[in-house]
């Protein structure tokens, strides 16, 4: 096996729900002379986990052949990846990240919706899970045990997450749930019985194990809600992630082949992405602001955040292709239609959503399809963020209650965002959905390489850091989002932009507008901010100051539309406003 110091080339396979992508990372300085790693080539093909192939490795081999054509380098021979690198053949190391396998199917059982059940739901969102149903009494005095048992038996989930009762608290209602689950498990074939993960009242652990231990596998972890005021998600999250890795990732058809080529265990894509966000947080070293990463994929939306030493990852089980139809059942079509700058009938919207789900690899071909795609990204992101935020402890970054905590940079990744035809569109969708406050740099993971870098970090941290600093993440620009309320058109901030060459520009931002000022990628400028007394740019209401800004593909952006962002109710006016914003960002 090649040791870390001698790794000159790394290949990462990112097997997503729809696409499998290979990224080749190489030390471009060459040998001991230097350590400067760059992504030098990539190839993409369809993921082959499902029929007619039923083998993950087929897609990886297809992408390898494409990569061979692009690079002219032989990578695959004698039925396997060539490792280590020999001259112009093969690579030194190979890593695999996965989000392709079906999520863990989960039934949550517990007592109080706002307490233990909510904590269980949050614990489940830390890995790839689908919550099939939630069992609780729902205010009834009697336990509907027959219904509970029938539900668990009919669903036959992978895992039942049983919670309820603070430590030393409720006993009988928890045992009634356990009884029903045990009965359901006993009615299933041995290989279909769910694992029971118990994360409830600690005093009941022996009874739960005794009741169910002979029927199915029971794992006991710390209570997710040990007291009325505290939540403790870590152990339950770790256990669920482990079930996903063992039961889904390692068991995926073809995973064994990939594991045989790799130096590392298979890694969930969301975990790899969160590593990059954590790295950016350490790099920035700013305790007043955190770092936020969002990855909008075909089937899931990942939100990773890091504040001081605390990191969080939330996986929302809906993405740009799979999930929007289910989302519409809960929320209706109005929230999606409100984002369209052109009139559209509900039926046309639903046709587009249905066919996106039937053919998830396709892309918008005309503007109407594009608007729908962007509306879907906005709403999936907003829902994912709503799920993620209660799990955060932002500390000093939580400046304005109810608003997004201060985050800088914001990393945006995933096909749903990076495949937008113009960078301004990706920026606008991000601002509309996240509604950042204060000053943030938006980084675009243009080649969707961030999760791969997270995997590389586990193999050779220096290579990951080197690649990240060398243009893998491209700035869309610095965004200043003053928070406050004013009348449309009212000046909310004056700003003097002092460029590196000494040139200056005095500008004003008016309420309701998005203003873009020139600041090219890599170009730096000093900004002298003077918000009006009812507006806060992260320095306190009415307080200004000097800040450094760095340019990007869009430029220097002032989002003076206020927080929270409110769209006009009148459809005609709303469409005019949306058109205006799209125009402003060059979309």
């Amino acid at each position: 096996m090649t040791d870390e110091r001698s790794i000159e080339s790394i290949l990462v396979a990112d097997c997503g729900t729809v696409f499998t992508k290979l990224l080749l990372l190489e030390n471009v300085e060459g040998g001991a002379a230097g350590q400067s790693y760059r992504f030098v080539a990539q190839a993409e093909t369809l993921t082959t986990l499902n029929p007619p192939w039923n083998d993950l490795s087929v897609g990886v081999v297809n992408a390898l052949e494409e990569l061979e054509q692009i690079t002219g380098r032989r990578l695959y021979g004698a039925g396997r990846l060539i490792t280590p690198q020999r001259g112009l053949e093969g690579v030194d190391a190979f890593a695999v990240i996965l989000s392709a396998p079906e999520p863990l199917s989960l039934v949550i059982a517990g007592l109080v919706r706002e307490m233990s059940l909510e904590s269980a739901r949050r614990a489940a969102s830390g890995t790839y899970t689908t919550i099939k149903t939630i069992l609780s009494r729902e205010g009834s005095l009697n336990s509907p045990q027959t219904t509970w048992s029938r539900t668990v038996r009919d669903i036959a989930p992978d895992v039942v997450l049983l919670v309820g009762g603070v430590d030393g608290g409720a006993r009988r209602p928890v045992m009634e749930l356990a009884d029903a689950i045990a009965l359901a498990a006993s009615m299933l074939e041995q290989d279909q019985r769910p694992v029971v993960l118990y994360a409830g009242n600690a005093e009941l652990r022996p009874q739960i194990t005794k009741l169910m231990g002979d029927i199915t596998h029971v794992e006991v972890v710390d209570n997710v809600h040990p007291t009325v005021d505290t939540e403790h998600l870590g152990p339950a999250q770790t256990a669920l992630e482990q079930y996903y890795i063992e039961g889904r990732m390692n068991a995926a058809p073809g995973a064994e082949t990939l594991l045989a080529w790799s130096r590392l265990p298979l890694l969930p894509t969301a975990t790899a992405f969160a590593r990059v966000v954590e790295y950016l947080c350490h790099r920035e070293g700013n305790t007043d602001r955190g770092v936020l990463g969002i990855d909008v994929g075909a089937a899931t939306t990942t939100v990773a955040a890091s504040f001081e030493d605390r990191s969080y990852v939330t996986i929302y089980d809906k993405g740009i292709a799979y999930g929007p139809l289910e989302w519409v059942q809960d929320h209706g079509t109005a929230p999606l239609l409100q984002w369209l700058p052109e009139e559209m009938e509900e039926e046309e919207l639903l046709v587009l959503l249905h066919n996106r789900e039937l053919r998830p690899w396709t892309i918008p071909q005309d503007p109407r399809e594009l608007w729908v795609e962007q509306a879907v990204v906005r709403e999936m992101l907003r829902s994912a963020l709503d799920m993620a935020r209660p799990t955060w402890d932002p500390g000093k970054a939580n400046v304005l209650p109810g608003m997004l905590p201060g985050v800088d940079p914001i990393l945006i990744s995933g096909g749903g965002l990076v495949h937008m035809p113009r960078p301004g569109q990706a920026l606008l969708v991000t601002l509309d959905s996240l509604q950042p406050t204060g000053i943030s740099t938006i980084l675009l993971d243009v080649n969707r390489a961030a999760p791969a870098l997270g995997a590389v970090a586990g193999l050779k941290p220096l290579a990951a850091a080197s690649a990240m600093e060398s243009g893998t993440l491209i700035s869309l620009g610095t965004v200043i989002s003053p928070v406050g309320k004013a009348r449309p058109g009212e000046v909310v901030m004056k700003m003097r932009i002092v460029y590196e060459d000494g040139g200056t520009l005095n500008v004003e931002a008016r309420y309701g507008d998005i203003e873009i000022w020139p600041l090219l990628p890599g170009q730096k400028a000093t900004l002298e901010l003077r918000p009006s007394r009812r507006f806060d740019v992260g320095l306190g209401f009415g307080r200004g100051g000097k800040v450094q800004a760095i340019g990007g593909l869009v430029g220097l952006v002032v989002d003076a539309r206020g927080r929270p962002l409110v769209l006009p109710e009148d459809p005609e006016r709303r469409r005019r406003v949306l058109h205006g914003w799209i125009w402003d960002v060059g979309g």
Partner: protein
Amino acid sequence: MFIPYSIVNPLTTVRIPRRLPRPGEVLVRLGEAVEASRIVAQTVEPADFCIVDVARELNVPVKKVKAYLKIERGAAVNEGDVLASRGGLGGQVCRAPITGTIMGSGRGRLLLEAEPQTIHVAALVPGLVVEASPTEGVVIESTGAFMQMGWGNGKEAFGKLRVVVRSPRHPIRTKHIDAAAQGAILVGGLHFDEETLGQAIAMQVRGMIVGGIPPSMIPRLEAVEFPVVTTEGISTAPMSQAFFDLLRSLDGREVSVCGRMRYRWGAERPYVLVPMPTRGAAPVNPETPLAVGSRVRILRGPYTGSSGVVSDIPKGLIQLETSARLPGVQVDLGGKEFAMVPFANLERLL
């Protein structure tokens, strides 16, 4: 670059899996020839059950329940039968809520299980059993015209194919569904309306094959007993010409229609098979590369559902209306109409 495909082929050999929803029993042998109606496997549906809380219903302590029971474990009971009773003034009775068998008791409760139902899986297509797993099901090899569909309502059937419209742009209407439609599988071009569906149910048609259906019809179609499949998915667009032409050429033949689909985590697609009494037709080759002359269908944009032939594969990128620039092809849609389509929005027709 791998381009997805749909099979729309007048003569090919296909392997059709016929799986049980849960472990059961396979009733045919490997190598056996089967007809479409032959039951090839069967299993038992999990029975309904209920937990009867006798202690609560009689209002007695758990330990005393046994003394009041009128039945024993293993006893068969009918709905309404007395399971336990407490006599005397103000006595109470606990009755069976369903017909079934007492399967267990404990902690003051009885577990009552209903009779399980047997599920049969028919061959659906005539052919040879080429794979047989003793508990899971079989794979049947069959030859004929085969078409992979875009959407299906989960039902399946076989019957006589009846093309009732003149072109892929014409919908099935009530006037097309007369006495001759009984037992037939009807083909129409466009989607149909509620009234037409009602007529189809009344006339006992055995299935419907159309270009698309609007989203509002999905719940209604999922509830009907016969298969409804569409070539274009959920759509109000006409049926792709390639599918319509093939179906029209097969008018009057026996056809198997399967509307089962699981496009995510299992990729089971609906299909239509018109069996032919020949052997040895070559299966389609999914590796067939995309080239000038390849038959394709367009999946997005203003030409959604249109089928044609690749007339050019430009070396550079093509520009879309969205302003995205991507590699793609020029498609000849016939009638001197051409469309530029990115690879991502193409499907090969094999």
